[in-house]
């Protein structure tokens, strides 16, 4: 059992004075310290967090309420800019960089009384599926220290599962919230593209980056989403939020649920298949109308992703040039040397690999063959999903083909590592919401069930996810 109450109850108790925000922060910090050997956390914000907590307690003592997340500690992936705190994106090139402004998502959470206590480990710049690409350390899976927690939000997922805080923030560009949620065993929610502002979050691939919560329950994730979401004048791609994310309800009875055929074929490990098939039977028993849905272009989603994502990565990482902030190589004596040495030494292998692929696919003469073609397939994919989601209410399938793999198992084979994203990238390419819900264990390792919905159907997805969560529990 978790040491944390549901988020709604924590906030209620803090607002009533029953619980002290300072105690909650201390509890969180203690848990972080107790679980140090999992390497989930890059830095803690102890002083700031305790200060904010005491302000909240004082404010409550004077009879005020401190918001819907009053006193709730949380952990942000270290690619969120938190004012005055180190923000490294787990990369050497940003080591020591202190954020001079703050992410909109953090502002909104703080406005409702939440307290950021720590920054979680990730694959550097969110490039990866295991946290092994972190320039600092590899986070260990809470269920088996020899295994990865998934990634790139592996630190956030492990932190939630290890009870370090009631929730953590992640980013999901190709599966980086859902896949670690599945590997580590918590709920991971990827909202509709644009629902949460990306302002103040280190960009990976701007057209697919989304921000979302990792939490113990769907309802906890829903509250956090509700607070963070909505149009932001600092992000032109944001969209209006809708009412009803919190306490959303859904009824499985008569609901049309399509199992994605392409995700269930060869390549899926037996263990995961078994858990997912059991989950499907439970949904059926719960009254859902299950059918098999084929999305032929989905096989191309990964290829498309690994063209568009590196293209945007190569562009988004251009600003790390050693001239204004972050690592600047002290040996450089000319501008060109400064660029080459700062970037050469500051970026890790995976960032360099993606910069090179991205630069290649965007270069003149290759743009049409790669980037443009990828965008055409992306549009085809969007259309296929739209059609499929006219016939069924939700699509389901596994989150990843396997359970958490061993640390070092895939590290020398980038292609094998990229395959971890094969079942998650489609949602990013089309911009639709998707969730990973704990569905059971296979050989003592967690397996997540992925549920996908139509664009902006976040409320509906959260509602049905609560039903599914209950059935699978």
């Amino acid at each position, binding site marked *: 059992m978790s040491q944390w109450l549901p988020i709604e109850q924590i906030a209620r108790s803090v607002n009533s004075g029953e619980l002290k925000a300072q105690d909650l922060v201390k509890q969180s910090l203690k848990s972080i310290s107790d679980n140090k050997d999992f390497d989930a956390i890059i830095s803690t914000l102890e002083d700031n967090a305790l200060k904010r907590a005491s302000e909240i307690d004082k404010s409550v003592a004077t009879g005020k309420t401190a918001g819907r997340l009053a006193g709730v500690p949380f952990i942000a992936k270290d*690619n*969120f*800019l938190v004012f005055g705190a180190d*923000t490294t*994106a787990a990369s050497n090139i*940003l080591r020591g*960089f202190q954020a*001079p*402004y703050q*992410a909109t998502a953090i502002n909104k959470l703080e406005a409702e009384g939440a307290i950021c206590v720590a920054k979680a480990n990730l694959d550097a710049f969110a490039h990866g599926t295991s946290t092994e690409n972190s320039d600092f350390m590899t986070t260990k899976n809470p269920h088996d220290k020899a295994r990865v927690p998934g990634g790139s939000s592996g630190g956030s997922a492990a932190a939630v599962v290890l009870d370090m805080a009631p929730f953590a923030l992640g980013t999901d560009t190709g599966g980086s919230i859902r896949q670690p949620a599945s590997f580590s065993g918590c709920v991971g929610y990827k909202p509709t593209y644009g629902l949460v502002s*990306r*302002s*103040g*979050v*280190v*960009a990976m*691939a*701007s*057209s697919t980056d989304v921000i979302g919560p990792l939490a113990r329950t769907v309802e906890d994730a829903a509250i956090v989403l509700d607070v963070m979401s909505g149009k932001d*004048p*600092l*992000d*032109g*791609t944001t969209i209006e939020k809708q009412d009803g994310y919190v306490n959303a309800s859904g009824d499985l009875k008569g609901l049309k649920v399509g199992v994605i055929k392409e995700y269930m074929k060869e390549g899926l490990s037996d263990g995961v298949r078994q858990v997912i098939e059991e989950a499907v039977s439970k949904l059926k028993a719960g009254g859902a109308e299950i059918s098999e849905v084929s999305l032929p272009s989905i096989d191309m989603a990964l290829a498309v992703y690994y063209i568009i994502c590196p*293209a*945007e990565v*190569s*562009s988004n*990482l*251009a*600003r*790390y*040039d050693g*001239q*204004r*902030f972050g690592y600047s190589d002290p040996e450089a004596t000319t*501008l060109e040397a400064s*660029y080459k040495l700062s970037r050469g030494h500051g970026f890790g292998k995976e960032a360099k690999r993606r910069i090179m692929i991205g*630069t290649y696919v*965007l*270069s*003149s003469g290759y*743009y049409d063959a790669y*980037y443009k073609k990828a965008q055409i397939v992306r549009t085809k994919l969007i259309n296929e999903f739209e059609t499929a989601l006219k016939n069924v209410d939700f699509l389901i399938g596994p989150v990843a083909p396997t359970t958490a793999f061993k640390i070092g198992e895939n590290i020398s084979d980038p292609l094998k590592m990229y395959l971890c994203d094969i079942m998650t990238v489609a949602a990013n390419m089309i911009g639709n919401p998707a969730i990973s819900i704990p569905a059971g264990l296979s050989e003592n390792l967690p397996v997540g069930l992925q549920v996908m919905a139509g664009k902006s159907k976040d409320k509906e997805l959260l509602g049905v996810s609560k039903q599914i969560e209950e059935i699978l529990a």
Partner: protein
Amino acid sequence: MINNDIRKKYLVTIGIECHVQLKTKTKLFSGADNDAREAAPNTLVNHIDFGLPGALPVLNKQALELAARAAFALNTSPQSFSKFDRKHYFYPDLPMGYQITQYDEPIILGGHVTYQLGDELKTVNITRAHLESDAGKSTHASGKDYSLVDLNRAGTPLLEIVSEPDMHSSVEAKAYARELWLNMRYAGVSDANLYYGNMRFDVNVSVSQTDKLGTRTETKNLNSFRSVEKAVDYEVDRQIELLEKGEKIIQETRGWDEAKQKTVSQRTKENADDYRYMPDPDIPPITLDAAWLDHIQQSMPVLPADWRSKLSDLNLDGPNIETLLEAEVEHEQTDYLKLIADSLDDPNQAKFLANWFVNLEIPLRASEEKLNLPNDQRKAAYQTVYNLSKSGKLSSTNVKALLVRLLSGASLPEDIEAYASQVGLIQLSDTAEIEKIVVDVISQNLKAAEDVKNGEMKAIGFLVGQVMKLSEGKANPGLASQLIKKQLGV
């Protein structure tokens, strides 16, 4: 040196790319102040302009509005769909490592500019115009082992207007540049202050003896009409000289050396960078709302071409019209054209205003003469002076003298006519009084009077002169002449 006979063998072809700095309050993609003219370096910079991690550009809607106004000023409408792209290169004054520009779906496609060249009306077609953000400013101090970067200008909105190669002489190039400048000013798109580099011209020049265009060079960053003209002249002669020697033109970017009055090679196109253009995923494509666009079109002011036709209806000549059109934007809030337009019901009055603007007020202001009269009182001043002149109370010499006095004063006298009279500028139009003087003059100049009677009309001039002298210049000379004739019975 090239002589005219050789020059005549070649057809010169010129296209111009002009960067117009939009006068938005804030930058194209950030809330930082856009007026970098007098600001200390790096004071108008926020996290977006600085390219910090996580900073996202958000399109400034005012820039869109100004681009739409520019489109109407270029005799077209903005595209209902356009988008932004990233153009990548590394340089310290480009903080994000890419410039945000519009690559293949610009805000403006087509349009044209017409201008007057002597008696001819010429047209230059517009290929396209796109929005983009400016880079910062790099300063490379000589002898220093560092360069300085000022990011105040980074993110300033620019509209790059690309013309078709429709010009064929340096005079045409200069005239087009000036016309573009006038239009951007009139449409309220830009301050278009050339001194501050609000408009910068890149001229593409080629020469050819056949129908096929020759290899062109691009001379960048010209910041005056004169340098546009001079750079074209220089390039034309340089290219002809090379061709005459049997050499080839290298396609390249050149700069203008103002001190030496010549173009200099900067970079050949063969080493052109690969900018790796891609659609900017941070900025959603732009779709313009028809009602919004309609509203902007309704708010467009009268543009230079329309003023020209209005003013030529008053029989003003070309050079005077151009003087008015330029002064209108150079002398802020003087509203020359509005004052003229307001009095079009009385074409004589309108003409009177145009005449005294061109011949008096504009030169006075141009020579930085101190004119203290508040602008909003000028209408009344001109109105009264016109009425006094019309009723014969002011000679044209005295119109000028009175206007100078009125425009120099801090405010208008309560009774302008009384004031004019007091300072001795009102001419005598009282028949009885002038008649007395006339009688005196005739009695003192009998010989001349006799000449007039004998039909020697030249002598009237002499007598009028005497009347003027005796009246200390106040007599209405026309009236005096009539009265002399009446007295002498001719």
